[in-house]
C-alpha cells in the first residue's frame, strides 16, 4: 500500500474533513469551472488563493500537496513545452523550422501549466479530505434524481465503492505476490523491455486468479447476507448540510465572483496600478 498518493485519504479532523461529501463534490466542480473561467493572471491569483485557503483549512501538509503535483510533472513539462513551441504569437524571440517561441507563447504555456497545477491541487484536496466511501455516498446522493429515469444509481455507487475498496487490497496482494516470486529468484528491474514484460507474468497471473477468487467470495458474502438494492436503504452515517458546508459554499462563491470580476476589469481600476494592469492585460 505505497505510492498511490493521487487520491489517498489523509486522516485528520479538520474543518474540510468534517464537511458534507456532497457539498465538497459540488464545490470541486464549481472550482474546476472557476479554473477554466480564469483568463488573466489576476484571476489565476484569485484561484490560487482559493486553493491555498482550502489547503490551510484542511490542514494537509504542503509536502503532501506537492507530491500530488510530482505525479503529473511529466504532463506539465510536456504541455508547457508543446504550447511554448507551437503557439503562433507575434513577438517572436526564437524560431527554427516550425517551432516559434514568442512572448504570447510563453504567457500561454505558463497559464496552461498553472491551470493544470491548480486543477490537480484542488481535486486532490477532495480525495485527501474525503474517504472513498464518503465520495461514493456523496455521488450516489447527488445522482439520486436520475433514479426517476431508471438509472440504477445505487448499483453504480456500490460498484464504485467496491472498486475503490479493492484498490488497496489488490495493491497489497501485488506486494505479496512480488515478494513470493522474488524469493524464488525473480527480478523485475533487470533486462530489456521484453524480458521485463515477461517477468510480469508471474505477478499478473496470480493477481488475476486472486481477483476472481475474491470477487466470487464477495458475491457469496453479499448473497449470504441477503444484500439487495431495495429502494429505501437507510445509512449508518447520515449526511447533513451544516454550518461548515454553508461557510464552504460562501467562501467558494466569493472566490468565483472574484475570478469573474478580475476577468472583466469591472471597476476599471487596474489602469492606475501599472503591475496590476500588466497582469490583467496578458
Amino acid at each position, binding site marked *: 500500500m505505497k505510492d498511490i498518493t493521487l487520491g489517498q485519504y489523509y486522516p485528520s479532523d479538520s474543518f474540510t474533513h468534517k464537511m458534507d461529501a456532497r457539498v465538497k463534490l459540488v464545490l470541486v466542480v464549481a472550482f474546476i469551472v472557476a479554473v477554466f473561467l480564469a483568463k488573466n493572471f489576476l484571476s489565476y491569483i484569485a484561484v490560487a488563493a482559493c486553493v491555498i485557503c482550502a489547503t490551510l483549512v484542511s490542514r494537509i501538509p504542503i509536502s503532501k500537496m506537492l507530491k500530488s503535483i510530482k505525479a503529473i510533472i511529466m504532463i506539465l513539462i510536456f504541455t508547457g513545452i508543446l504550447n511554448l513551441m507551437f503557439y503562433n504569437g507575434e513577438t517572436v524571440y526564437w524560431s527554427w523550422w516550425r517551432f516559434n517561441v514568442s512572448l504570447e507563447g510563453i504567457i500561454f504555456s505558463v497559464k496552461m501549466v498553472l491551470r493544470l497545477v491548480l486543477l490537480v491541487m484542488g481535486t486532490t484536496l477532495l480525495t485527501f479530505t474525503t474517504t472513498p466511501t464518503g465520495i461514493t455516498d456523496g455521488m450516489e446522493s447527488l445522482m439520486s434524481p436520475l433514479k426517476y429515469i431508471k438509472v440504477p444509481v445505487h448499483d453504480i455507487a456500490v460498484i464504485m465503492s467496491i472498486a475503490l475498496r479493492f484498490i488497496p487490497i489488490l495493491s497489497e496482494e501485488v506486494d505479496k505476490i512480488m515478494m513470493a*516470486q522474488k524469493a524464488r529468484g525473480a527480478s523485475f528491474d533487470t533486462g530489456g523491455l521484453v524480458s521485463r514484460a515477461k517477468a510480469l507474468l508471474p505477478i499478473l497471473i496470480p493477481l488475476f486468479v486472486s481477483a476472481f477468487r475474491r470477487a466470487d467470495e464477495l458475491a457469496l458474502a453479499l448473497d449470504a447476507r441477503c444484500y439487495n438494492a431495495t429502494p429505501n436503504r437507510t445509512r449508518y452515517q447520515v449526511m447533513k448540510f451544516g454550518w461548515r458546508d454553508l461557510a464552504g459554499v460562501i467562501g467558494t462563491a466569493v472566490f468565483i465572483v472574484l475570478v469573474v470580476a478580475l476577468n472583466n476589469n469591472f471597476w476599471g481600476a487596474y489602469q492606475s496600478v501599472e503591475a496590476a494592469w500588466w497582469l490583467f492585460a496578458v
Partner: protein
Amino acid sequence: MQIKAENLNYVYSPKTPFEKTALDNVSFTVNEGDTLGIVGATGSGKSTLTRHLNALIRIQSGKIFLGDVDLSAKRVDLKEVRKKVGMLFQFPEYQLFADTVKKDVEFGPKNFGFGDKEAACAAEDALRSVGLDIKEIGDKSPFELSGGQMRRVAIAGVIASKPEVLVLDEPTAGLDPVGKREILSLVSELKKSFVKTVIIVSHNMDEIAEYCNRVIVLDNGKLIADTTPDELFNRSDVVDNTELDYPHTVKIKRMLSEFGFEIDSPALNVEALVSGILGRLKS
C-alpha cells in the same frame, strides 16, 4: 551457516499518520542446525522480521549477517542470498502462475541459474519429496489441482532450489489436521538432507513445542524472549503476559498438577506427555 541479526529496527510509512513501528531493536542469532520458532500476536512484527532474512525488505537500521554476508551492505548479491534462504509464504498456492506444474516448480531453480537438465532434475526431486509424481501431474495446469496438491506444488517450487535455510510463514494455515502433519514431517525430512536451518512462524503452539529447539517471542516489534520451548512453556510467565497460548500437552500437564499429579517431563509433545504420566504412575 549462522544467521545473526543485530539491533534491527523497521518503521512502516515513516513520518506520516500511518507510521507504524514493526521492529524495535531486535537482535538474535540462529545457529546452523537450529529449528527456530517465531511466535507473537498478529501485527507483532513476525512477517517483517522474516522478510528481512532474504533481503525482501531493505534494512532500515541494524545489521543482519548470513554467514559472512552482510545484508546491510550497499551491494548484496540478492540471487545468492535468496537461493540460500528459501521462503515459503502464507498460502503459497497463491503464487502459482505457470501453465504446467513442472514449469512452475522449475521457475526458482532456473532463476538461480540451474541449467535445463539440472532444473528438471531438481523439480522432479522436489515434487517427489512433497509426495507428488512428476509423470502424473507434471504437465497438468497447477490450477486444475486440488487445494492440498496446489500447496504441495508451491512448496516444491521453493525447495527445488535447495535452500540451506528454509523460512516458513504459517506453513500449516488453512490445512486439515492430516495436511498439517504431512507438511511438518516433510520439513523434518528436509532437515535431514540439504536444509540446515529451519525458521517457522506460527500461531500454533503445539507445532512450535513439538518441532522447534528454540523460540523467540515478539511483542509489538520488541523481542521479549529468546529461549527454548521447554523454558518458555514450563518455566516462564511470558505466555501469560502476551496474547499467546500454551500447547495442549502443557495445558494437560498443568491441569494434572492442579490435582496434585506432578509430571517432570516437559510435555512438549504427546509422547513425552504420555511417558511422563506413565513414569509417574509406575513410581
